């Protein structure tokens, strides 16, 4: 029977139970909600282990997908001297284990042991750095308790020196030169992290992995360069440089239709796998970075400007003495002595006459000639924006005093890079339309998208007719100049201009230090490719020495890209009048 007292007891019990439950609830909420994050973190610290997942830096490939730079796995084998020198079983001795490791890595076990014992309290030292997978697997199989392999990503350049100057290289502090540096945004990868819970024995509990940050692979950088052509061109330039005793040589092959660089060769060059052996001035790309006074190859640009402006036609003539006195008392003269000649504009190119070009130059005001040069891209960076690129020097027209007024028209008193010169001939070959100079086709990402695709908007610099007439005049050079026999490619019409430029030394020009070059397009009836070959400071001063190199590079280019032979014979323009 319920009495008052029993009801009171029950109430009290309920109250007590309720109070206790409340305490538990409060505690539960405190643990599960209020301090949940803190406890989770603390517990993960105890149970969980976070490991880094690695994104892979993107490859650099040529236009056909041949790999020029790829990321490879390497392992650093680190050791803990402290753990190694702990007393352990007599069966395993550190020197014996070291001997086994050294046999695999081909190191000196005694030196390794000395290094380990040099700081017995240390917990970290490198035993060997950057070993390949199979070496790592062999070392791993030894089951040495005190070594800790660290995986790392390294860079390999399977084609060595091929396009080495363009690709650049990676140092210990990241990208150092070339496209590795300038296109790092495309190539770079992001590491991610995965957290898992470890069991008592330290192994990951299945299903406990949590990806806290997704790793991201870098994009694949596709270049316009053709690896095999690049190999040939570099090889030919090295042969040329060695043959001529030149201190440097460059070659540029550019596709006329779209301004894509099919090959940019530098000598000396570098093997990105072995940067330590490269000379300091070979670390970049000279074709982009080092402007030179191009010399007479500029006469093609001058002739094109004169014809386009209507000031001169290819068959107009001037009387050309060997030397021409200037109002300021100086004189300009031709490279070789000759009797007074009657040369047409085409003849001025064939004979590469400074005096003739100077006289034609007078028919077009300096500012207009300057505008043409600027329109061809001289004095400006190319669209490539290569690491360390130079814009060359194009002085303003109001600084073209006296001889300089003429000299700039035959490539002295101004400077340009090989790539800029290639762009000039691309423009002439492409019916007067200058296309942006392009080295990178784009950055291809793993999701199938491509970014960084360069602009393809051309700029009409010359009329189609003026460009065609200029090519026809350059064909006369290929067929009638002194080096004509070295410029013939059977089946193809070629159009070229030679250049022998004096190099400024100590404020004056030197007769013995020159830059010789050939630049031109082929096939002349429908130009497909422009080639510029240049050699700096050769033993002998004669541009014809490099004519066979131009021919070979152009022939190889036409063969590589299966360009159809010319269908019609070359025009015959009068050289004399």
């Amino acid at each position, binding site marked *: 029977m319920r009495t008052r007292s029993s009801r009171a007891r029950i109430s009290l019990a309920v109250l007590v139970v309720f109070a206790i439950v409340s305490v538990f609830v409060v505690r539960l909420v405190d643990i599960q909600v209020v301090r949940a994050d803190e406890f989770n973190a603390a517990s993960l610290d105890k149970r969980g282990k976070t490991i880094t997942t690695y994104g892979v830096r993107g490859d650099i490939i040529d236009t056909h997908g*041949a790999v020029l730079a790829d990321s490879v796995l390497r392992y650093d084998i680190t050791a803990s001297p402290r753990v190694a020198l702990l007393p352990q079983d007599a069966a395993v001795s550190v020197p014996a284990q070291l001997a086994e490791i050294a046999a695999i890595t081909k190191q000196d076990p005694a030196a390794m042991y000395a290094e380990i014992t040099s700081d017995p309290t240390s917990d970290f030292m490198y035993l060997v750095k950057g070993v390949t997978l199979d070496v790592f697997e062999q070392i791993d199989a030894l089951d040495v308790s005190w070594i800790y392999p660290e995986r790392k990503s390294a860079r*390999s350049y399977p084609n060595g020196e*091929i396009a080495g100057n363009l690709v650049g290289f990676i140092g210990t502090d990241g990208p150092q030169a070339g496209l590795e540096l300038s296109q790092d945004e495309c190539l770079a990868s992001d590491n991610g992290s995965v957290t898992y819970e470890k069991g008592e024995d330290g192994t990951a509990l299945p299903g406990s992995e949590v990806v806290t940050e997704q790793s991201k692979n870098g994009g694949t950088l596709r270049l316009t360069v053709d690896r095999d052509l690049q190999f040939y061109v570099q090889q030919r330039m090295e042969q040329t440089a060695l043959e001529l005793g030149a201190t440097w040589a460059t070659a540029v092959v550019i596709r006329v239709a779209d301004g894509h660089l099919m090959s940019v060769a530098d000598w000396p060059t570098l093997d990105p796998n072995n940067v330590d052996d490269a000379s300091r001035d070979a670390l970049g790309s000279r074709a982009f970075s080092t402007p030179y006074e191009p010399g007479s190859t500029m006469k093609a640009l001058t002739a094109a400007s004169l014809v386009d402006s209507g000031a001169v036609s290819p068959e107009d003539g001037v009387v050309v003495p060997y030397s021409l006195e200037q109002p300021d008392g100086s004189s300009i003269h031709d490279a070789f002595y000759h009797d007074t000649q009657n040369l047409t504009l085409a003849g001025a190119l064939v004979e590469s006459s400074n005096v003739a070009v100077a006289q034609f130059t007078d028919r077009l005001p300096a500012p207009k000639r300057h505008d043409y040069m600027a329109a061809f891209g001289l004095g400006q960076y190319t669209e490539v924006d290569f690491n360390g690129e130079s814009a060359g020097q194009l002085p303003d027209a109001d600084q073209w005093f006296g001889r300089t007024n003429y000299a700039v028209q035959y490539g002295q008193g101004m400077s340009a890079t090989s790539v800029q010169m290639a762009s000039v001939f691309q423009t002439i070959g492409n019916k007067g339309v200058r296309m942006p100079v392009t080295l990178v086709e784009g950055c291809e990402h793993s999701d199938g998208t491509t970014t960084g695709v360069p602009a393809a908007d051309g700029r009409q610099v010359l009329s189609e007719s003026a460009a065609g007439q200029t090519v026809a005049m350059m064909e006369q050079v290929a067929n009638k100049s002194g080096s004509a026999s070295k410029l013939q490619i059977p089946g193809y019409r070629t159009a070229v201009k030679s250049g022998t430029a004096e190099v400024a030394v100590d404020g004056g020009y030197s007769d013995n230090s020159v830059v010789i070059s050939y630049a031109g397009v082929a096939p002349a009836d429908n130009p497909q490719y422009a080639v510029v070959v240049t050699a700096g400071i050769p033993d002998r001063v004669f541009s014809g020495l490099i004519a066979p190199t131009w021919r070979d590079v152009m022939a190889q280019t036409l063969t590589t890209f299966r360009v159809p032979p010319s269908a019609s014979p070359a025009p015959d323009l009068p050289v004399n009048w």
Partner: protein
Amino acid sequence: MSGTAAYARPLVAPAPSPTIHPHIEIVTTREQRRARPKLAYAVVTIMSLFAIFAAQLLLSIVVSQGAFQIEALQQEQKELLRTQDALSENLNLYGSTQNLATQAAHLGMVPNPAPLTLNMDTGAVYGSPGTADPMGCGGNCNLITNSLLTGMPLVDAAGATTGNAVAPVVAPAAASQTDTAPSTTNVLPAPVTR
């Protein structure tokens, strides 16, 4: 009159007699007996509980076994990818222009300095056939160095390697754990060229 009052017979309380309380119990009906829980039920229930627990345990073992298998397979995939990376590193190296040029030169091939061009439309042949330099570029066909090729074995015409072979990035033995020999029944017929 007798007027004698009749006395009422005294009422006598019945003497407490030693009564024996009969043992009374509710006799369960047959139905009730039938409805009473039997031990069998309890046993069945408990057995089923145990069965459920056992099943759950087995299931969780199987699940975690599967998880371990996934883990092992993921690990294997990781290792295979690693091997693939190393092999493609080798492939890139073997396919490098310098290696091909060196191997070709070793087999006695030289570049043709006078290539001919055939116009398919007209049948015209351009160029004049020349004699190749038996040395090939005066023995200088491979000036473009590649330090990765140091020690790359040279392959002779029979396909055997000669020269001081450097260990490739992956030792072939390490790479093949579950490899089976490639099927030769489905290969494309290739002409044997000499």
